[in-house]
């Protein structure tokens, strides 16, 4: 009674179907998006690499065995690491500074302790050589009342001063100062 009830007839009821695209692959517009995304990702990665390298470059040659952080990102690094900052205010022309570098920072045990317990950052004064410092160095020196070199300042990540030591009086005193400062910092683990 009824015509064309069978499933075969179903596909027969077609009127010149247009040939389909290969499966249901994404439309062309979608693949263009992926290449844009890829480019953006690569650009961001490059930016990241460049900025990291530039940061490292600013630290200059490695001094002793300390893993120095760039002074301006020290606060952020300290916050995420949950450690206090150790600023080493120093200058090229300063004799005691060189002694600190050679004796203190080059010592394996001291360096290990500093690397483990602080975010160490070097702030090199350039007033004599260049005539003036960049403003951020002036700001930092002013904030911690630095007027002689070397001055070691231990600060909390929010900038609060915890301990300060002027001059270099030998490895023993240095170690005592550092250990004492770490204790006073007494930061809770984490942020």
């Amino acid at each position: 009674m009824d015509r064309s009830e069978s499933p075969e007839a179903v596909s027969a009821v077609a009127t010149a179907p247009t040939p389909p695209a290969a499966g249901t692959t994404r439309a062309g517009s979608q693949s263009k998006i992926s290449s844009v995304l890829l480019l953006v990702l690569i650009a961001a990665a490059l930016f990241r690499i460049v900025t990291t390298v530039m940061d490292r470059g600013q630290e200059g040659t490695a001094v002793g065995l300390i893993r120095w952080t760039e002074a301006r990102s020290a606060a952020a690094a300290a916050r995420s690491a949950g450690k206090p900052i150790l600023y080493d205010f120093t200058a090229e022309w300063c004799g005691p500074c060189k002694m600190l570098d050679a004796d203190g920072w080059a010592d394996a045990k001291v360096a290990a302790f500093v690397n483990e317990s602080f975010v160490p950052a070097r702030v090199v004064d350039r007033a004599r050589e260049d005539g003036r410092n960049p403003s951020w160095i002036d700001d930092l020196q002013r904030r911690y009342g630095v007027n002689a070199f070397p001055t070691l300042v231990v600060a909390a990540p929010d900038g609060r001063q915890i301990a300060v030591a002027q001059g270099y009086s030998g490895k023993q005193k240095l170690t005592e100062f550092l250990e004492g400062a770490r204790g006073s910092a007494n930061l809770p683990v984490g942020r």
Partner: protein
Amino acid sequence: MIAVRGVSKSYGRFGRRVQALTGVDLAVARGETLGLIGPNGAGKTTLLTCLLGFLRPDAGSIAVDGLAPDDLAVRARTGYLPERLGFDRELPGRAFLKHHWRLAGGDPALADAETERAADRVGLDREALKRPLRGYSRGMLQRIGLAQALLRDPDLLFLDEPASGTDPRGVALVRERILEAKARGATIVLNSHQLPEVERVCDRIVFIDQGRLTKSETLKGASATRRRGVIRVDAGRLVEAAAALSTEGLAADAEPEGWLRFPLASDDEMVRAIRAIVLSGVAVYEARVSAELEELFEKNA
């Protein structure tokens, strides 16, 4: 225009997979109005969702004019009315339509005029447009949904239960709009339970049951594959009427209130059927040719 080949789709996680569609083959010609009918949960909505490119079939392919269904070129010509309208309630009707007008790529300068035109065509007045969708009745939501689907006169329309929850005036409006779109050559895929409406607007229907496309019937024109004659006679003289039909070679099913249903090979047979009954002296109260789509639901076990 739309070519569906061997499409299968399943849902769900391991251990609870539901096979929503199996081996569906379907072709919709340009300018054709196709009705998808079938029991609840049969996979009609899944099929529609695949046609719209929101689901990727596990097997098989779907192409619209040779392109992937989610191609932007296809989208630009598509109007879609989903079954459920639960969105952007805080927007006033006008803002909602203007938003879709702009999304569809319409000229922003014409947004106001086109919005009003669209609202007029679905019977929504200016007052209604000012109100947020939150305050719309179900029927009004259907209307504005339809208005949205018809923006920019798409030549590909997907309508999922467009008349559900509307009053008779709303149903008539939907029918008028569909026929209007048809007249300008649009290809329409309609998912609906309102069988009389389906019969009025669709050129062809396919019946989907448990994920398979089990029947395809052409409803209109000389090649119509499904015709029924339905005649109501004086209930007391049913037997005589049935006998009259059988002399014409038409075997009828009789129902108590005086209905006789019988398959027809052509409209001419209907003329003969009526004449046979009248000449046998039985009064004919009603007569129509119909596809009687409800019967499709009964036969499938």
